């Protein structure tokens, strides 16, 4: 089967179907036959809490698997329009049935998350990307590992935890999770079971409704780590959750000089500080000969403010739709803070802000 797929996806067959791809034809027989596009069928939707669901998916043969911690671009069609959002895989890599799952928290006025939680039916066809992202465990997992998550940020971490459990991990894993309350906690029962296993030290903190006699309370502070016997300098640490949680962990690690141990995953681009000291200079859109004072916002937002309509997809640095050539100048990534200053490099304008004068091929 894999060989047939490979042949069908080859450039040679493409010569016979040009200008279309073979998927344009296979799609007409059955969408799951596509050999270049990842598609999946929804197998079931499991309600985790009143506001969160797990969607179990059976992907087609194009899917090449995932590493725990990675996410997929997840497209679902509603009223003829495909809406794409990004979700982390929450299942174990060791599942034997070829299925995997994503778990979604329904935001009060979120379109896709509400649809998945309330209206998604089994057998629905969804349009995926391959698994992406660098928020993954190293091939050789170190003996000491700390996983920290808040709210729905548990999903990539849950995939790590499940995979470590299923592969019989021997090292020590500390899992520190923050949820509003026990009833708002995803995977509650399964976490209870995992907590009993020898390889994990688990600490779940309910910030709004603390459990009776809880050892720890409230939002993340360094004391929580001290209590768990964690030395940040020597512990590889993964953090995923609300911007506030990520910011406090990052500050703590920076203070201790332990940032090299830290891996972060954002579900939402942190809000941009438009009053940053380097929000100066002029932003030039070369192809349309428009200049604007750098307002400090992302280049995508500034282009839109200047009346341009660049293509975009996720607006959070995942899908690459907005990628475009930067001719000159330095830009800062709003999540990692990294500055890119080479001429003629391609950047994602949705997650970059100009630092001083910048010109863009737009």
């Amino acid at each position: 089967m894999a060989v047939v797929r490979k042949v069908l996806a080859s450039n040679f067959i493409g010569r016979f179907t040009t200008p279309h791809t073979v998927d344009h034809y296979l799609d007409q027989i059955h969408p799951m036959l596509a050999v270049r596009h990842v598609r999946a069928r929804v197998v079931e939707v499991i309600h985790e809490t009143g506001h969160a669901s797990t969607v179990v998916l059976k992907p087609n043969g194009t899917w090449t698997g995932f590493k725990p911690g990675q996410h997929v671009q997840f497209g679902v069609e509603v009223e003829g329009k495909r809406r794409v959002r990004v979700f982390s895989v929450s299942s174990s890599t060791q599942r034997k049935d070829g299925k995997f799952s994503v778990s979604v928290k329904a935001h009060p006025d979120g379109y896709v998350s509400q649809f998945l939680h309330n209206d998604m039916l089994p057998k629905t066809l969804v349009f995926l990307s391959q698994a992406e992202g660098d928020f993954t465990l190293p091939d050789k997992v170190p003996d000491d590992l700390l996983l920290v998550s808040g709210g729905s940020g548990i999903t990539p971490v849950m995939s790590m935890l499940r995979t470590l459990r299923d592969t019989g991990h021997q090292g020590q894993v500390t899992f520190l999770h923050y949820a509003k309350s026990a009833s708002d906690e995803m995977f509650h029962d399964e976490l209870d079971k995992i907590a009993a296993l020898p390889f994990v030290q688990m600490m779940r903190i309910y910030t709004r409704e603390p459990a009776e006699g809880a050892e720890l309370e409230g939002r993340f502070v360094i004391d929580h780590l001290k209590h768990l016997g964690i030395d940040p300098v020597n512990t590889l640490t993964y953090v995923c959750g609300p911007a506030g949680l990520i910011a406090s962990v990052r500050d703590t690690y920076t203070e201790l000089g332990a940032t090299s141990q830290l891996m972060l995953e954002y579900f939402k681009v942190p809000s941009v500080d438009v009053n940053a000291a380097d929000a100066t200079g002029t932003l030039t859109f070369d192809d349309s000969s428009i200049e604007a004072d750098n307002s400090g916002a992302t280049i995508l937002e500034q282009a839109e403010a200047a009346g341009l309509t660049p293509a975009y997809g996720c607006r959070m640095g995942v899908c690459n739709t907005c990628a475009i050539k930067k001719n000159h100048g330095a830009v800062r990534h709003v999540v990692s803070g990294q500055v890119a200053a080479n001429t003629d490099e391609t950047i994602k304008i949705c997650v970059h802000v100009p630092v001083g004068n910048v010109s863009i091929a737009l």
Partner: protein
Amino acid sequence: MAKKRAPIQPLSASNHNEGPKHLVGDDTEKRATIGLDLMTYEQLEDFGDELDAVRQRVLDDLGQADADYIRRVIRVQRAAEVVGRIAIFFPFFWPVFLVGILLLAVAKILDNMEIGHNVMHGQYDWMNDPMVDARKFEWDNVAPAEDWKHGHNFVHHTYTNIHGMDRDIGYNMFRIDKDQPWYPSHRFNLPLAFFLMMLFEWGVMYHGVELDEYLAGRMSKAEFKARKKRAMVKIRRQVAKDYLLYPVLAIALVPFTSWWVPLAVLGGNVVANILRNIWTFNIIFCGHFPAEVATFQEEDAQNETHGQWYLRQIMGSANISGHRPFHILTGYLSYQVEHHLFPDIPARRYPEVAKDVRRLCDTYGLPYNSGRLSKQLFSVASQLAKLAAKPDDPYMVGNSPESKARRRAKREAAALAAQS
């Protein structure tokens, strides 16, 4: 992981979803005069607003039915193509062979017209489905999508029927409007049209390379080279598929049938392509070239209002009446007027929109050009025949001493203006 391409190309029609652009002049005080013989500026304003409302109503209503429709057309197109290509492999059984050629021609027509033309206008971009995305779509003919989108979506749809700006008036080949200057080559208007009809896809490709723009110094060498390269790549793919790979595949049949089978397959492909050329040529020539269709001068259109832009589209286009299957095979270019008013709404909506357009034309007493295919074709042909003759007015003859003197004077005046 597969490397993703940066999707935005300058000059690709990635901005086709914007409302139509207006022609802006240097002298911003001056107002455009288009339509003043028919309406006042206030009326033109109301007229523009009403058409905007019609467009918005359709945009707000887009949904599952439109998505299902275009997918159904794509399904029929793919089926016709696959069955047609298989049937062409049976030339020793001629009814099957003929049906195969017809099916392949229909598949190519659907691909170019109802699917390609309309998808590349961005009519289905709202679906966010890569298979019907204007930025990604490529059609089954030798003209590369990117250059066609620029020449068609931007140049032709913005400057529709303005002399010296819309390169589609006579395609630099014909004299189709009496305001075009006459050159000796126009004596061959009709034979040239026949020639172009047979090779239309090649004409569209050549038109998109814009050699004339490059020679006139209006295009950089780098841009011209890039266009040439894109065209060569596309030609190679198309020719290899239709005229090499499928015929070569048919060699496998030779031991069981006869030596000429691969040649018949090649011939079948050639004929299917020509049938598509003939059809598309005829439909497209009926869009703007019938006799009563108006053309405009740049001075009259500069600083046009929204209403004037709409009016120019109505007066510059002509519809063809017919039944639904006919409209689908024309990609609803038979609703050329509606298409030019609203190039970015799914074409299947044009019949519904046409009711409002006709109503507005009645209200304001505007011309609305529509006729049967035979009538429009006859009008185009007689126009080509009539305008092939040398006009009496020496200023209408492009290479007469009078015209040359006038062009020189114009150039000198422009140079003088640039100096001061």
